[in-house]
């Protein structure tokens, strides 16, 4: 648990240092994820401890968004002033993104296997 958590923090630190050092637009943790992924490919998979720790952490991923989400109370004024455009924009955009992404992927996946023959 402890050594796995340390490993995750080391990769985050590595990502953070490189992202800032090279002024990349990518945040440190995302870069850290890519590095760890590359390391796993080289090493041939995570050990039991890393597997267990990451599972624990990801099982309650939604908890980690609660503090930032509670920040809505600071913006209640703006949200109250512009609630209709905000709500509709988020609603329509989220729906459109889900539909477009899923549809495009479905079409792409089907295209090669049917070889242009529509079914």
């Amino acid at each position: 648990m402890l050594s796995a958590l340390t490993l995750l923090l080391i990769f985050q630190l590595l990502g953070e240092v490189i992202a800032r050092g090279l002024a990349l637009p990518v945040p440190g943790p995302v870069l850290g994820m890519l590095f760890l992924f590359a390391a796993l490919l080289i090493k041939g998979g995570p050990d039991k401890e890393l597997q267990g720790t990451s599972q624990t952490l990801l099982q309650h991923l939604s908890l980690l968004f609660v503090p930032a989400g509670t920040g809505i109370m600071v913006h209640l004024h703006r949200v109250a002033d512009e609630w209709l455009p905000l709500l509709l924009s988020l609603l329509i955009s989220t729906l459109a993104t889900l539909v477009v992404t899923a549809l495009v992927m479905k079409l792409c996946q089907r295209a090669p296997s049917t070889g242009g023959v529509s079914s």
Partner: protein
Amino acid sequence: MTQEISQIWVYLSASPLLGLTVTLLAYQGAFWIYQRSGCNPLANPVLIAVSALVLFLTLTGTAYQTYFAGAQFVHFLLGPATVALAIPLYTQFKRVRSMLLPVAVGLLAGSLTAIVSAVVVARLLGASTSTQLSLAPKSVTTPIAMGIAERIGGIPSLTAVLVIVTGILGAVGARYVFDAMKVRDPAIRGFAIGIASHGIGTARAFQVNEQSGAFAALAMGMNGVLTALLVPAIAGWLITGIG
């Protein structure tokens, strides 16, 4: 007696202990409700926990900054949790590799749709320019989105809130959208939810299916990078408008 209680309150409200404890309590209560509902997406644990906390902080007159002094310990774990997404990604790598084309095309189409549709709808409905700019990166994970908002002249803390709401909307609605579209492949369902609603969608996807979760994590990571490149490039064009 009342004086003693108020003294205890004065102590508690100034220490990080309270913010941390109420966050964990609110989340566990919310998660209990979520499980009780049979993991119904409408009973989203983030939504319930945030509502309960806003109510609690408002009723007790606690400032968000005071609360966050304690809650930041939970917030901090977002970093290592993001890194940990590499593990499910590795486990599902075979499947990802067999779907490179749909993944690449889905990423590009989804990312553009998320950015453009949010800004255009807000503009048509008369939202202020700073609100429109704060909306542009709303589909990517909080730290990336805040960085983008800052760079293009949006309001980072407003963006953080919009990101969370987007995540909740996607996590709540995705199942119904996919069922209506007859999309059953857990890989596609996961990927689309990761593009539209980042980590909160990914959290939901993991609760449903490991493969969905891995694809959501992949989508979230790639969309974070792509959005960070796209939004600054097209923000000016989006705001001045094309018609």
